[in-house]
């Protein structure tokens, strides 16, 4: 299957005048073709995309990846559907809460549910996940209470959950840095002789960061059991993927000596299968894999963003036809024995989730002032103690005044 790919766009010299070349179109067909490209015989790239479920909800065969979803039950299919629906509902609620001023910011995952639920459900309990700031669906799969994700967006903490409770690391905002943490963690897993795997999430934009490249290098050299899961949602804030690369991102991996695969990021079955495959490779000691989930950021980058400044509605419309939830519903409706009740109940469950999230957020208290000084250090620091004491005395001086006033 060939899909829209950034590789199709021609590179050009930054200044006008020079003609574009076919350089960007070259296929990554190994050493021979490297030399061939050299002499100008570049060919168009056939970008492969792993897809198990078409946008129309039809199941397509894939000899390599079918085995990874072969035994899937109807209940499990409904489970994936439920995960996606509830994640979307949660996400919508958070967006609404931001509009109401309950959150300072929200980074919506709208459109990326399949990539996140598919990959998240592929993980095993003992696996470890390193997210960006947008992996609400993965958090869901890991059993992190969604309301916990909201603390940092409300501004009451910088990450409110215990990463070790669900093997789901804190959200990381500095783009790409978690790829190295994941690699190091995976090196540790291997040292321990465990057969867990690690998965690092990042975006198309992040692929440009040196840290991500270094993570590729370290993971390859140490053969670390890590899966790099790149959600190429085609935008890094306002920049289209062509500002980050001129060939499909999954191809980046082979230059580091491990496989890269592009999967339809709006196809939850394909994401599940490919991620399972990659995690199992890791468990078997076969080292890192790069999975590029080709998807689309349907909404704004965050609630602070205004996409109308940099992209047209047509693009969004085209992707709406590929909606991850719709296609699984079609499939479930046509291929399983699922009655309307399921969908109705799910609707209710969604609303209940929305309500709960709303209530919890509204009740979320501001942290105590002294939290500023807590946890700056694990073993304490003399200056922090001194400043805390000064702060306390300073705060107390107001209390004195207020008391004084009351008297």
């Amino acid at each position, binding site marked *: 299957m060939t899909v829209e790919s950034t590789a199709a766009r021609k590179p050009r010299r930054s200044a006008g005048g020079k003609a574009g070349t076919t350089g960007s179109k070259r296929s990554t067909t190994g050493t021979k073709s490297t030399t061939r490209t050299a002499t100008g015989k570049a060919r168009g790239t056939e970008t492969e995309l792993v897809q198990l479920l078409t946008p129309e909800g039809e199941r397509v065969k894939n000899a390599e990846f079918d085995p990874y979803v072969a035994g899937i039950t109807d209940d499990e299919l409904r489970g994936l559907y439920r995960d996606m629906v509830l994640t979307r509902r949660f996400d919508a609620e958070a967006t609404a809460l931001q509009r109401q001023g309950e959150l*300072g*910011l929200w980074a919506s995952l709208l459109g990326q549910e399949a990539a996140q639920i598919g990959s998240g459900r592929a993980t095993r309990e003992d696996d470890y996940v390193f997210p960006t700031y947008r992996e609400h669906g993965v958090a869901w799969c890991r059993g992190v209470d969604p309301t916990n994700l909201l603390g940092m967006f409300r*501004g009451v903490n910088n990450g409110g959950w215990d990463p070790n409770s669900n093997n789901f690391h804190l959200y990381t905002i500095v783009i790409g840095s978690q790829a190295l943490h994941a690699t190091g963690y995976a090196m540790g897993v291997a040292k321990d002789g465990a057969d867990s795997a690690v998965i690092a999430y990042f975006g198309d934009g992040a692929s440009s960061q040196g840290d991500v490249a270094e993570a590729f290098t370290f993971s390859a050299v140490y053969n670390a059991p890590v899966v790099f899961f790149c959600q190429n949602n085609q935008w890094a804030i306002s*920049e289209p993927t062509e500002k980050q690369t001129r060939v499909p991102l999954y191809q980046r991996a082979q230059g580091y000596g491990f496989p890269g695969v592009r999967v339809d990021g709006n196809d939850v079955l394909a994401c599940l299968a490919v991620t399972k495959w990659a995690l199992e490779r890791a468990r078997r000691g076969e080292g890192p894999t790069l999975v590029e989930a080709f998807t689309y950021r349907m909404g704004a980058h965050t609630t602070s963003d205004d996409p109308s*400044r940099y992209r047209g509605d047509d693009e969004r419309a085209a992707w709406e036809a590929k909606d991850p939830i719709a296609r699984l519903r079609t499939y479930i409706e046509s291929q399983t024995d699922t009655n309307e009740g399921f969908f109705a109940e799910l609707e209710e469950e969604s609303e209940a989730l929305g309500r709960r999230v709303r209530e919890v957020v509204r009740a979320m208290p501001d942290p105590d002032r002294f939290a500023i000084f807590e946890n700056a250090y694990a073993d304490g620091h003399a200056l922090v103690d001194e400043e805390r004491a000064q702060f306390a005395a300073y705060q107390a*001086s107001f209390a004195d005044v207020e008391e004084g006033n009351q008297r």
Partner: protein
Amino acid sequence: MTAEKMALAKAINESLRTALENDPKVLVMGEDVGKLGGVFRVTDGLQKDFGEGRVIDTPLAESGIVGTAIGLALRGYRPVVEIQFDGFVFPAYDQIVTQLAKMHARSLGKVKLPVVVRIPYGGGIGAVEHHSESPEALFAHVAGLKVVSPSDANDAYWMMQQAIQSDDPVIFFEPKRRYWDKAEVSREAIPDPLHKARVVREGTDLTLVAYGPMVKLCQEVASAAAEEGKSLEVLDLRSVSPLDFDAIQASVEKTRRLVVVHEAPVFFGSGAEIAARITERCFYHLEAPVLRVGGYHAPYPPARLEEDYLPDLDRVLDAVDRSLAY
């Protein structure tokens, strides 16, 4: 139209526009600086008018942004690069500290690197982690860099002009919480030199020094203190490297008391350098030790706590009182 009231962000926008118009070698580079016009709209409309060749959306890689800007400067360009937020300058820190800062000296003066690194900085906007930092001390300690921060729109306009004209690399800290504050910008004024402090309010009892976002606060403090009969002099430093010690000294010799205010953590912050040097210069003039008001030695807190972390009217007044109590 020689003077116009405009927001600080708009003043920088206008200044960049002027520079792009006047000098074909000037470039604007950074993440989302093109169509979007930057997350704060500081580069709004520039790509439309000057093209993708001069207003350049870059890959998401800060070391790459600064590193390629160095190469462009070596080729004769004058890049103005944007770091999207204060907390994201660190991937570029190596290029800034080991290359940008040192190449002029390394080349015995043969090579000049007129690169401006724009960094929206500071807190007070209720942002998530890494979006409210004040890392200026980490640049001021590094020889070869100049570090400045305007406090109002007119300075923002002119200091950007001067920074771009400078043959030295300039780290240009933009007080993001003042982006929307308006002031008169005069295009025909003769600007103060880039690295000179300015007395923004005269006083006799105590000197307050600040730069960037804290200047406005210090002016408010001075007004509040005035109501209590205390006459505070307020200095806008404008430049953190070099620091205008002469101006601070002149003020302190008059007022004999000094309080330094910045958002950055006090520990190893600008206030330390100012206190140390002014104490040396004014040892016999000071009636009180130089006091410092700034951030605590703890990671910048979540937004709901930032009011307690950041210097505010009461905390500065408290320091003023403590100083006057000596």
